[in-house]
């Protein structure tokens, strides 16, 4: 520890000149001070003082410690004093005097003299201490308290500065009073000391600044200034203000640096030229002593060189930094300093012997490292390698260059010149410093030893290198480690130890490859190639050579050299025949694209396939390759869609060129190999309600991405390439690959059907094989064999029956060759014909749709068989031709159909037409075809649609009857209709069908209908039913003329009960006396039902009753007004007994009331056949019960009824329409067929005028 000391009445000095303790009071009081001194020096630094500083610097607590020196006049500082360390800060006068007499006699004079001396030196920092002693006091009796010595002194000397005189009572006793007085004294002393110190320090700083400002003046010396500022630094250091001390040195450092820079810029200071003297000594930094006095003196004497100054400055900075516990900053600054010194020497153009600086730097690095190691423990050092490793690396570098310089790295060892240089270098080191002389591992010893012999150098260099690499590796600076490793490899190569070099080169290369640094890769590879050549690793060497030969960063000559290396090896006779050296192809040549002919890469068995590849040769010269081969993997894949003929004909590949991505090797591995993320959304729904359960993103190629990076396999070893030994190889011999793109064509004849995958590409040059292990993207070609096939399909969407339709026949020959005379035998279907033409043309084309030829063929038809003789066609071709077929327009009416269309069930018929409204009726025809290539028949079904739908209806006019036939065209085509005919199939002569149609052709448009009407006439009693056949000829309207006559379209139907039996006539009469009916007034409705014929066959049913040759039938009538125009008053229905005799008439009278005015249609009158219940007996009873049941609804205004049974019948109407009533059996009603009843008043209307007193006039217009 350094301390700052004061002395007695005068002051002196720090540690630098060893401390002198010279106490002093008056001459007689020397003993007094000596007795007090131990306590004083012990007590003074005990309490800290707050040190307030100028220029806004933060106050600090400091402990004062002082050195006491006896006062001498010559110790007082002269004017312009620069020394601060030896500066007397406070002058103390000690006296024990208690006697006024003595005081007056001697002490006062002494004091006065002392004061004058001080004044002469303008020193104002003084203190007078009066020590009071009880023992002494007792001896003196005549002491007046008021005029004590102290008062006297104060009065005489302390003019208004009473605090400059203190009393110390009984300093050597151990009493509380003593203690108190001590404390007071010490506080006073500290305060005054500090005051003085601050004042003088400020003054010193000001002086120093003034001196600095003079630096531009000529004659200003940096060294002088250095000493002044260092004085300040020393003071701070002694006060333990290391930070402040360091600042002083840093300022000096910066000032010096700036001068050097300015010197470089041409602004040189005179004093600086001194530092430019040639370097003669390079003994490195010395950091083991706090102050290198030797160097300090050199500076003081202005004899220091630049290295001396820098060394001294740094040693001081280092010391202070270590005090500040900042060893890592030392390391960092050391590196900066070393770099800086080298630069400064360069800048100042100082002549330095070669290697001298290397020595200096090496020694300094090690010195700094050892100094740091000396003050830190192992763990600290280990965790701060990052700070020190730079020095290690620098030292290694310097030792290496020294080694090269002194010929210690060559195989042969140093020559005499090298030895001379070594001796010179060692001379510059001088003798070892005494402080390290005993250290075994001192930098000095290390360097001396390293330069002494090749072996020692190797040992030291390897030690350092390994240590550096290890340190770099441990803190993760892999790149730096590899770089040092490369230096090491270089060293090994110089020492002809390639086996040791290889590891480092491989490691470095791997690192550069992984990060894609092209130039370092090339450079390292070149070194590696040399190394491998020395090692005799032929395969590796050839591979590296091939990589180098294709490396564009090398010069043409170098590339050619490496290419020749490969070619030379390839042309040598191999030591062991058959031995192959397999190398990856990538560096030799790159596959650019591949092209198949045929372009879809599918050939049939026996077909010829050619593969054209473009290979880009990476070699700088043309290379003759003995053979280029593609290994092909063959696999039989069953049911492979690619192989079918359909696939062939449907897929047309664009151009058949497969491009291979150009791999750019300098890009880092990581970038190339990682595939892109394949992300997919997933939704998982609950099976019950389809709500979303989970959703997420799935990466489909996780296995590719999360694969462990292969760290162990070296990138440069060819082990990864395995030569596949496939049975299928495409070969091309004797190819010369020019630099750049080359086209090579392989030809092969397809043999076995299956899929062929191109796997490897190999190029062989003697024993050297360049192999592309995987051809990617996947390239395949397919060989297929195909069974002959026949396809028959209509040309249009659907075939129409009745007119000629075209059908396309496609024969895919497959492996079968169609010979002349081969024919297709079609067994005819019944209602379908194949229309034969004189000339038929077939198109023969290859499977790839290339038209081969046109050929004619013949079609021969007999009753059962149609024979199509095929034109000759080679295998794997297609024969296409079209034939016309004709299906008969309508199949004979089936039972179901006629029943459906029967008049008797109009309801059902209607439903059926609804259903069939949108689609045509179809007929299927099956044709079996015998093919020449197969013993089995091919059955083909053709579906024909009937283009028309026909409906018929019966129309009546009184007793005259008409048949209407409606033909609806359902197809998309327009047709011409002609020769419409309706014939009675029963062939009775008494029936006549008189057409009311035009005889000319009729056009029927698509989706439209044509109606035909015939009047039915008969001479005798008509038959109850009539069978008719409608036929109409038709032909497509678009075609001019058809070669064949077409069958007409026919439609058969049956009409029953067409004879009119009853005529119903209704009439409404206005009330009597009025001309018109009025709304709201009752009118009478007269209904007359007239029988038009006598008993006929159709009447014979249950309703017919016979009594005495007199027949009658029961009918029920009903008046219904659906449009609510009329209110029927009273009964609206009734049962009548109708005599079965011509002109028998039954009249019914009813009251109706019109509800609206206007021309109103009459209410409907409906007629039903009234069939009794099977047991007539019970029906009577039932009827009675019905009356009772219904009695409530009977109107008062009952009966003009002729028959009381009308009431009953009304009830039965309800029960017939309604559901069962009490479960009783009821009479049945049967509607009369529409042909049997003719309503003659249909469509008549009657005028109703509004009643006059109506407030609202309602007019209904119908």
């Amino acid at each position: 520890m350094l301390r700052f000391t004061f002395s007695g009445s005068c002051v002196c000095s720090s540690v630098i000149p060893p401390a002198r303790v010279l106490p002093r009071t008056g001459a007689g009081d020397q003993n007094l001070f000596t007795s007090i001194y131990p306590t004083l020096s012990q007590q003074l630094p005990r309490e800290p003082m707050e040190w307030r500083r100028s220029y806004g610097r933060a106050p600090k607590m400091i402990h004062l410690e002082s050195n006491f020196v006896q006062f001498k006049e010559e110790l007082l500082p002269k004017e312009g004093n620069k020394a601060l360390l030896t500066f007397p800060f406070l002058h103390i006068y000690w006296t024990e005097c208690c006697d006024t007499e003595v005081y007056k006699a001697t002490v006062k004079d002494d004091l006065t003299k002392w004061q004058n001396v001080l004044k002469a030196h303008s020193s104002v920092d003084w203190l007078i201490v009066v020590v009071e002693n009880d023992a002494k006091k007792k001896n003196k009796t005549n002491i007046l308290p008021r005029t004590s010595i102290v008062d006297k002194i104060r009065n005489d000397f302390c003019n208004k500065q009473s605090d400059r005189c203190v009393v110390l009572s009984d300093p050597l006793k151990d009493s509380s009073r003593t203690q108190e007085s001590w404390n007071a004294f010490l506080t006073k002393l500290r305060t005054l000391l500090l005051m003085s110190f601050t004042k003088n320090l400020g003054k010193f700083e000001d002086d120093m600044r003034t001196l600095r400002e003079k630096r531009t003046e000529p004659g200003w010396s940096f060294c002088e200034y250095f000493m002044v500022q260092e004085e300040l630094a020393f003071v701070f250091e002694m006060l333990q203000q290391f930070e402040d001390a360091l600042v002083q040195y840093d300022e000096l450092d910066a000032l010096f640096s700036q001068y050097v820079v300015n010197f470089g810029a041409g602004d040189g200071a005179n004093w600086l030229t001194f530092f430019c003297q040639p370097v003669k000594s390079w003994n490195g930094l010395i950091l083991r002593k706090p102050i290198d006095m030797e160097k300090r003196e050199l500076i003081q004497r202005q004899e220091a060189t630049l290295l001396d100054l820098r060394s001294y400055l740094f040693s001081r900075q280092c010391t202070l930094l270590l005090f500040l516990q900042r060893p890592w900053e030392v390391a960092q600054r050391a590196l900066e300093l070393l770099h800086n010194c080298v630069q400064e020497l360069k800048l100042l153009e100082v002549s330095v012997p070669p290697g001298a600086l290397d020595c200096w730097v090496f020694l300094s690095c090690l010195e700094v490292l050892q100094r740091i190691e000396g003050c830190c423990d192992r763990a600290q050092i280990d965790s701060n390698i990052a700070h020190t490793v730079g020095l290690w690396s620098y030292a290694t570098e310097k030792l290496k260059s020294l080694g090269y310089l002194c010929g210690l790295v060559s195989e042969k060892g140093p020559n005499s010149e090298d030895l001379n240089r070594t001796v010179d270098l060692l001379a510059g080191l001088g003798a070892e410093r005494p402080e390290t002389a005993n250290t075994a591992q001192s930098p000095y010893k290390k360097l001396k030893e390293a330069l002494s012999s090749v072996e020692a150098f190797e040992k030291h260099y390897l030690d350092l290198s390994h240590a550096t690499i290890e340190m770099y590796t441990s803190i993760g600076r892999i790149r730096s480690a590899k770089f040092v490793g490369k230096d090491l490899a270089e060293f090994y190569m110089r020492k002809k130890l390639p086996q040791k070099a290889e590891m480092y080169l491989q490691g470095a290369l791997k690192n550069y490859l992984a990060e894609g640094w092209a130039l370092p890769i090339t450079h390292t590879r070149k070194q590696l190639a040399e190394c491998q050549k020395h090692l005799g690793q032929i395969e590796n060497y050839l591979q590296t050579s091939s990589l180098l030969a294709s490396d564009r960063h090398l010069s043409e000559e170098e590339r050619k050299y490496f290419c020749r290396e490969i070619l030379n090896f390839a042309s040598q006779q191999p030591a062991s025949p058959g031995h192959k050296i397999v190398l990856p192809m990538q560096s030799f040549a790159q596959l650019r694209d591949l092209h198949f002919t045929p372009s879809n890469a599918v050939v049939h068995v026996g077909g010829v396939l050619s593969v054209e590849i473009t290979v880009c040769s990476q070699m700088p010269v043309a290379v003759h390759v003995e053979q280029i081969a593609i290994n092909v993997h063959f696999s039989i894949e069953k049911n492979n869609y690619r192989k079918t003929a359909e696939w062939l004909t449907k897929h047309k590949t664009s151009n058949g060129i497969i491009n291979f991505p150009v791999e750019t090797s300098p890009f880092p591995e990581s970038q190339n190999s990682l595939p892109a993320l394949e992300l997919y959304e997933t939704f998982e729904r609950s099976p019950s309600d389809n709500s979303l359960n989970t959703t997420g993103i799935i990466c489909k190629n996780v296995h590719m991405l999360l694969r462990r990076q292969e760290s162990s396999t070296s990138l440069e070893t060819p082990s990864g390439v395995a030569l596949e030994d496939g049975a299928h190889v495409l070969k091309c011999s004797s190819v010369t690959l020019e630099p750049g793109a080359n086209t090579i064509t392989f030809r092969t004849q397809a043999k076995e059907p299956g899929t062929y995958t191109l796997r490897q590409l190999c190029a062989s040059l003697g024993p050297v094989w360049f192999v592309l292990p995987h051809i990617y993207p996947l390239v395949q070609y397919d060989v297929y064999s195909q069974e002959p096939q026949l396809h028959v399909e209509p040309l249009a969407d659907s075939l129409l029956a009745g007119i000629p339709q075209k059908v396309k026949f496609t024969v895919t020959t497959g492996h079968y060759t169609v010979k002349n005379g081969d024919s297709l035998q079609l067994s005819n279907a019944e209602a379908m014909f194949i229309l034969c033409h004189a000339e038929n043309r077939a198109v023969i084309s290859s499977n790839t749709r290339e038209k081969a030829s046109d050929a004619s063929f013949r079609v021969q038809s007999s009753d059962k068989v149609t024979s199509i003789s095929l034109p000759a066609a080679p295998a794997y071709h297609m024969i296409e031709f079209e034939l016309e077929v004709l299906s008969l327009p309508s199949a004979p009416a089936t039972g179901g159909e006629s029943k459906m269309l029967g008049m008797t069930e109009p309801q059902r018929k209607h439903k059926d037409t609804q259903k069939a409204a949108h689609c045509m009726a179809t007929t299927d025809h099956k044709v079996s075809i015998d093919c020449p290539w197969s013993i089995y028949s091919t059955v083909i079904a053709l579906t024909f649609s009937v283009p028309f739908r026909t409906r018929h209806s019966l129309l009546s006019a009184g007793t005259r009857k008409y048949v209407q036939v409606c033909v609806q065209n359902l197809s998309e085509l327009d047709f011409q209709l002609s020769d419409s005919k309706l014939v009675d199939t029963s062939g009775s002569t008494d029936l006549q069908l008189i057409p009311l149609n035009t005889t000319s052709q009729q056009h029927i448009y698509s989706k439209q209908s044509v109606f035909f009407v015939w009047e039915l006439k008969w001479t005798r009693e008509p038959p109850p039913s009539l069978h008719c056949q409608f036929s109409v000829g038709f032909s497509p309207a678009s075609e001019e003329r058809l070669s064949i006559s077409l069958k007409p379209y026919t439609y058969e139907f049956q009409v029953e009960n067409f004879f009119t039996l009853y005529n119903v006539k209704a009439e409404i009469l206005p009330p009597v006396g009025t001309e018109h009916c009025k709304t709201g007034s009752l009118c009478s409705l007269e209904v007359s039902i007239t029988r038009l014929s006598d008993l006929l066959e159709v009447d014979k049913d249950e309703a017919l009753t016979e009594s005495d040759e007199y027949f009658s039938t029961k009918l029920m009538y009903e008046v219904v007004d659906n449009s609510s125009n009329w209110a029927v008053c009273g009964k609206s229905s009734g049962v009548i007994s109708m005599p079965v005799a011509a002109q028998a008439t039954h009249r019914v009278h009813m009251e109706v009331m019109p509800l609206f005015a206007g021309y109103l249609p009459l209410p409907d009158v409906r007629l039903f056949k009234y069939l009794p219940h099977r047991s007539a007996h019970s029906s009577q009873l039932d009827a009675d019960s019905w009356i009772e049941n219904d009695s409530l609804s009977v109107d008062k205004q009952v009966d003009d009824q002729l028959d009381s049974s009308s009431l009953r019948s009304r009830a039965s109407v309800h029960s017939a329409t309604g559901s069962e009533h009490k479960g009783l059996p009821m009479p049945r009603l049967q509607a009369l067929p529409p042909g049997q009843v003719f309503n003659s008043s249909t469509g008549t209307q009657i005028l109703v005028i509004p009643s006059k007193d109506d407030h609202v006039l309602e007019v209904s217009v119908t």
Partner: protein
Amino acid sequence: MAVCVAVIAKENYPLYIRSVPTENELKFHYMVHTSLDVVDEKISAMGKALVDQRELYLGLLYPTEDYKVYGYVTNSRVKFVMVVDSSNTALRDNEIRSMFRKLHNSYTDVMCNPFYNPGDRIQSRTFDSMVTSMMIQVC
């Protein structure tokens, strides 16, 4: 001014590297590559500092006897490394900073080019001429 300028991708392969033609190019490649160690160290030391507070300029990566290597890292971890001659004492931190900023701006322009594929080597002529200007300026 600068003797070597390099732009290095996030994956540490060079996107652009150019040095003064008079010097051995290989040396600078090695130097820049080695400096990535310190860049990595500095980046990991920065840790997860807030993006807007993060200083892009990494300062002096390491000095060598003859050169000073400075680093700069963009938010997308693209690194700029600049090698400056040690004897060129005129270059202060501020100048280096502004040079990096210029470089960054120019790099951003390159990235804005829709025809530039991020991750490809920079072949922009504008960028090249900007680097040239940075290298010529003083030396």
